[in-house]
């Protein structure tokens, strides 16, 4: 799937569902089958990173990386590093929002 197909809404949804971090991986610049898909992705992710950071969700929880289909080792390395990074950031603050429907704290 083209990285331009990763709608910002999907990323927002992932965070809402409790993801501690979101990694978007796309083809290298210049390699786009659709010519400019990854240019679109880079701008979208950049704007969204700014925005979540302003809302208090670290921008480091959202990562865009270029990984070609043949770069299995890079994929593994990036995934490992990102996992470590996110682990160091701790759980997403979205999980501690008091309005969440099933918050156990609300149960009397």
């Amino acid at each position: 799937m083209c990285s331009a197909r990763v709608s910002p809404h999907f990323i927002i949804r992932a965070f809402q569902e409790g993801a501690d971090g979101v990694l978007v991986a796309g083809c290298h610049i210049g390699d786009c089958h659709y010519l400019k898909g990854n240019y679109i992705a880079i701008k979208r992710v950049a704007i969204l990173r700014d925005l979540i950071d302003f809302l208090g969700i670290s921008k480091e929880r959202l990562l865009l990386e270029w990984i070609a289909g043949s770069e299995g080792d890079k994929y593994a390395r990036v995934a490992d590093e990102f996992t470590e990074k996110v682990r160091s950031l701790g759980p997403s603050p979205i999980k501690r929002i008091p309005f969440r429907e099933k918050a156990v704290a609300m149960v009397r």
Partner: protein
Amino acid sequence: MEALKNKVNELLESGGIAGFLGLRNFGSEPFPFLFTRDTAAEVEKITTGAVRYPLSKILIRIAAVYPDAIFGIMCRACDERAIIELFKNTKLRSDKVITIGISCTDDLVQACKCENPQPSNLVSGEAGKKEFDRSDVQKIASMTLEQRFDFWTEQLGKCIKCYGCRNICPVCFCDVCTLEDQPLVKRGEIPPELPSFHLTRAYHMAGRCVDCGLCEEACPVDIPLRTLYRRVRESVKELLDYLPGEERDKVPPIQVLGDGLFEIRD
């Protein structure tokens, strides 16, 4: 005010416009009204008022019914910024709209923290001073991540999901609204899912928001929405070098940022 009345009468009489969308005193209060040749007597009640209604958004609706007519519209600087974006997004046609600029009172400029209260084609009043005040954005940006998160959770948590921010927004012109997209945004409860409802709307303001502040005025629970969208506006300027409403000749980056065009829904 006399200058405005004269201008409207002149345009109506000459046939230069089919109608002028502005504010009319209804009893003691101003409300939007379309002055036409048939209702020329009402021009006497024209007012610039101290209130702002989303005139450009109203004009989209009227122009959709009368696509060939030319309309005049009362334009504060914020209205004009919106109209520039509406031209670019083909919601209004630049050859069918004549803007009649009016100035805002100093009080209104202050209250709006308007960064550019100077419309072109000024017919009534004097242009206000430019005052660029981003202290609201800076105040939040200077907090720690955790403080910011708590601040926004408290603010956005007040939301009673009236959709007023969207409904009044002059640049919210999509036929299908993502905020009503059930799988993406859960419906039927208040506050709406935090923060995704407002995050989604804020993202959609990228490349569109003209910083008019009508959203914040319409918010029944005083959420500082404008501050949120101002930050988005700044990001777009920094990253894409585009300032909505201020750049008549640049192509808007809206498709890059993603509107309906890039969504696949199921």
